[in-house]
Structures are given as structure tokens and as C-alpha cells.
């Protein structure tokens, strides 16, 4: 089919507008949550923990919190939009359109990346006042933020297609996304873990996203950023192939 750039752009804009119209809930609330984490953990642990030489715990924590917010909100955007449209029935407007599965993918994932980055920037803008930021290798910040958000936006797309009820997307979030984020080194360096848990962390793609992202700030990381990029890149391609396949076959959206 001929490419429908205008259609893809429209769906992308609609998905961005959708969260922006309720930004108190979709942007301000997650920023507040991240700030509360920083206040509590920073206050309790600042004097006790130093992960990298010369880097205070609050400074260490900020990039982790920013990335956690990016990932969770990218997931929330595509998953909640799809499940809402499915349940309310207005997905039909999109289903009768000539948009291809590539267009759906680009628009839903693209808007998820935007939501993730907007919330991430919000968290950074508020938390940066608690500890002066370093930008040792800033390109890694951009690369891992965008790629991580795209990966979670894609997972949200898959969850939104699969789920039939709101609690199913919430379960996906609570039992998969949340544990994988929390166990990825947001609040600690995995080097501080016992060997078994360190090994397990290395099997978690979220660990590489957060480690690579943090590398951009401190120039130090648990693994090489190139290794992290390879793991995150391959993981993204894998979930993207699944999502595109589900969209092309109309999984649970075309009977």
C-alpha cells in the first residue's frame, strides 16, 4: 500500500494530545511520585551510601528515578490508550481506517516515547535542585532514554492488545514492569548485590537501560555502554517484531 504519512502523523498527534489533555494525571502525578522517592531515600541513605567515588547517593539516585519514570510512563501511555479504546469501542474509528500496522506501531510507540521523555524531563527539572548534575557522556542519556521508552511503549502496545480488562494491563504493570524496574539498579549499583542476585540482574534488560542511561551522567557504569546498547537494542527489536506481528494479524482487535 502507499504510505500514509498524514495518517501516521495524525494518530501520533492524537496519542500525544490524549495524555497532554490530562497532564495533571499523566505528567504531574508521576513527577511528584519520583520527587517523593528522592526525598525519602535521599534523606535516609545520603550519609550511608556512596556508589561511585565522589558521587553522593542523591546524585546517583536522580538518573535512576528519571529513567524509571521514563520507562513506566512510556508503558502506561500505549497500554492505557489501547485498553481504553478497546473497552469503550472507539478503536473502531482506527480499525476502519486505511492505516497499516507499521503506522499503528510508529504512532503508538512514538507517542509513548514523547510521554516518557516529557515525564523524565519533569522529574529531572524538579530533582536537579537537590544535587548538581554531571553530564559526562550526554549522548548516552539521549540514546538510552529514547530506546528504553520505545521498548516500554512497545511492551505497553502488546499488553494493550492482549488485555481485555483494565486490571490485566495493571497486572502486567505491577507484576512484570514494576519488579523488573525496581530490580534493575534504580536505587543501587548491582555491584553491591550478592553474586546470585548480580547474575540475575544481568538477565534483566531493564538493568542495561538504567546502567547505560546513568553512564551518560557519571561516565561510570556497571557494564560497558556498548554492551548495554546491544542488549537493549536486541530486546527492542524482539518486542517490536512481536508487536508488529500482533498488529498485522489483528490479534484481539479484528475477529
Amino acid at each position, binding site marked *: 500500500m502507499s504510505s500514509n504519512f498524514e495518517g501516521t502523523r495524525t494518530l501520533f498527534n*492524537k496519542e500525544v494530545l490524549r495524555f497532554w489533555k490530562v497532564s495533571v494525571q499523566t505528567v504531574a502525578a508521576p513527577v511528584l511520585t519520583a520527587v517523593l522517592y528522592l526525598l525519602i531515600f535521599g534523606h535516609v541513605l545520603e550519609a550511608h551510601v556512596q556508589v561511585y567515588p565522589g558521587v553522593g547517593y542523591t546524585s546517583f539516585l536522580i538518573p535512576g528515578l528519571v529513567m524509571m519514570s521514563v520507562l513506566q510512563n512510556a508503558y502506561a501511555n500505549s497500554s492505557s490508550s489501547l485498553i481504553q479504546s478497546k473497552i*469503550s469501542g472507539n478503536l473502531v*474509528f*482506527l480499525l476502519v481506517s486505511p492505516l497499516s500496522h507499521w503506522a499503528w506501531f510508529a504512532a503508538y510507540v512514538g507517542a509513548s516515547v514523547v510521554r516518557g521523555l516529557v515525564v523524565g524531563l519533569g522529574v529531572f527539572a524538579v530533582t536537579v535542585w537537590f544535587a548538581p548534575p554531571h553530564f559526562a557522556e550526554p549522548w548516552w542519556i539521549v540514546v538510552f532514554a529514547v530506546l528504553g521508552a520505545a521498548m516500554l511503549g512497545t511492551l505497553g502496545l502488546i499488553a494493550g492488545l492482549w488485555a481485555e480488562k483494565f486490571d490485566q494491563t495493571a497486572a502486567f504493570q505491577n507484576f512484570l514492569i514494576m519488579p523488573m524496574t525496581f530490580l534493575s539498579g534504580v536505587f543501587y549499583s548491582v555491584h553491591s548485590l550478592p553474586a546470585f542476585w548480580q547474575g540475575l540482574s544481568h538477565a534483566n534488560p531493564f538493568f542495561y537501560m538504567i546502567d547505560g542511561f546513568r553512564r551518560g551522567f557519571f561516565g561510570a557504569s556497571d557494564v560497558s555502554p556498548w554492551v548495554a546498547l546491544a542488549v537493549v537494542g536486541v530486546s527492542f527489536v524482539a518486542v517490536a517484531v512481536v508487536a508488529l506481528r500482533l498488529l498485522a494479524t489483528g490479534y484481539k482487535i479484528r475477529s
Partner: protein
Amino acid sequence: MPAAVVFDQVAKTFAGARGAVRALDGVSFNVELGEFFGLLGPNGAGKTTLISILAGLARASTGRVTVMGHDVVADYAAARMALGIVPQELVFDPFFSVRECLRIQSGYFGIRHNDSWIDELLVGLGLADKADVNTRQLSGGMKRRVLVAQALVHKPPVIVLDEPTAGVDVELRQTLWGFIAGLNKQGHTVLLTTHYLEEAEALCSRIAMLKQGRVVALDRTANLLAGTASTMLRFKTDDALPAAVAARARVTGRVAQVTARDAGEVEVILGRLREGGVKVEDLEIGRADLEDVFLEIMQKEAA
């Protein structure tokens, strides 16, 4: 020129709780360019399944459907560009105003600057003063108008209306039919499913009737009306009808309606009523309408 819509041996089997359910069983018919075509049938006959396959909301198990010559699976983008669907369910996007919804729908079809046509649609459907109102705040009838407008943003040559007047007030029906009839006159093909048979009789030049997933009648509306029982006996009574008459009567409260092929058959029916001692009031004899034709065909199929 190809037909506007071609259904060619379309079958659809759903996996149900108690085994496979055959919703459509080899449905074939064409809707010609410029026609106002009616698709009728009782609940569960497969009308909405057929429309869903046409729109790409469902896939046929076997068979083929084309819109303006474009296969709805292999060439779905071109097929959907040619098709405007008004869905049966009253759905809306609560995040957006009426105008925003119409702009978004235009964009999906690759149209960026569509405001002059959107304005025309808003006026034609009586939505002009609701353009900037959030769709969530509209009444059911207004939401239905927005659905019609959304289906028409890309000026599709083929318009499909799936039960568009279910639960809709008289005023909206008039507006809607005036507008759709106008589009039909301009050359748009219209495919309509409805439960209101007087609407189908008034609007549709040709009709297909579905029952249990099969086409049981397909003809010009005039031929359908002429070809079956053409006389209708209508009367009021408090008495029980004789079995031979009751079997073919449509009874609503005190009112009974019985179809007859000709004057001789009217005589026979009246004779049976007399023999049965049925006291008849307000007897009328008139021409049968599409509802009678529909019931007769459905009963014949059941027998």
C-alpha cells in the same frame, strides 16, 4: 466498472463455547454503483458479521469481498478509502470535541485540510452548534450524528449504515435520511441494514434478506412486494383464532393481520373466521408491505 461491493461466497465460522458457530454460510451478492441497497434479516442472521468483514473489523473464513474492485484483505487500504462505515454501537472518543474528532478521522484517511467539508457535514447533520462541544457531553442522538459525520469525512463512494436509526427520535431520522438520500442522488452507493422495514421499503431500490447466515431473498424491492402475498387482512378481535388462521396471522394485542395471495384466499380466510365464530371488528383489506413480505419469507424458510 466493477460493482460497488461484491460478496463472493463469504463464510464465517466462529469458535463458540459449544463448538463452531457458522455465522455466514456462502453469502454472494453485489451492490451496484449508485444503488440504495437494503440488507435485512432477524437478529443473529449475520448482517453485522457481513458488514464487519466488509469493513475489515472481521475476517471471512472463506470467500472474498471487494469494495470498488479492491479486495478488503489484499488491498485493504484502497478498499477502506472507498468505504464509510457508520457502526451500530454508539461509540465516541471522550478526549475530543466534535470538530477535533472529525479532523482526526480525516487525518487517518490522509486528508490534512478538510475544514470546509467538515463544516458542510456539521451543517447538513444539524451539528453546527455542537462543533466545539466534547463528544462526551452529547445526547445519544447527537452522538449518532457525529458517527455519521465521521464515516463521511473522506467522501467515500460507498456508505454503509449498520442499524443507524435504532433508538433514534423522529427528527434525527428525518435529518439523517434527507442527508443520506442527498448523497445517494449525488452518486454515492448506500448499503443499509435496519430493523425498520418501512424505512427499507421507502429508501432501498433493492433488498437482500439474510437468515441464519444465508441469503434467502434478493430482488428489487418492488418485485419482492409484488411477488409474494400482496393482500393484507387486518381486524380486531377478542376471540381465539381458528388454528388454520392463527398459524399464518401476526397478532399484536387485539389486532390480527393475515396475508392472502388474492381475493379468493381472502374469501377462504373470512369463511374460516365465520365458521370459528370469531367476532371481527374494524376489518380492513389493504396492500401488503415489506414487513409482511419479510415475515412470509422468514416463515417459509423456517418450514
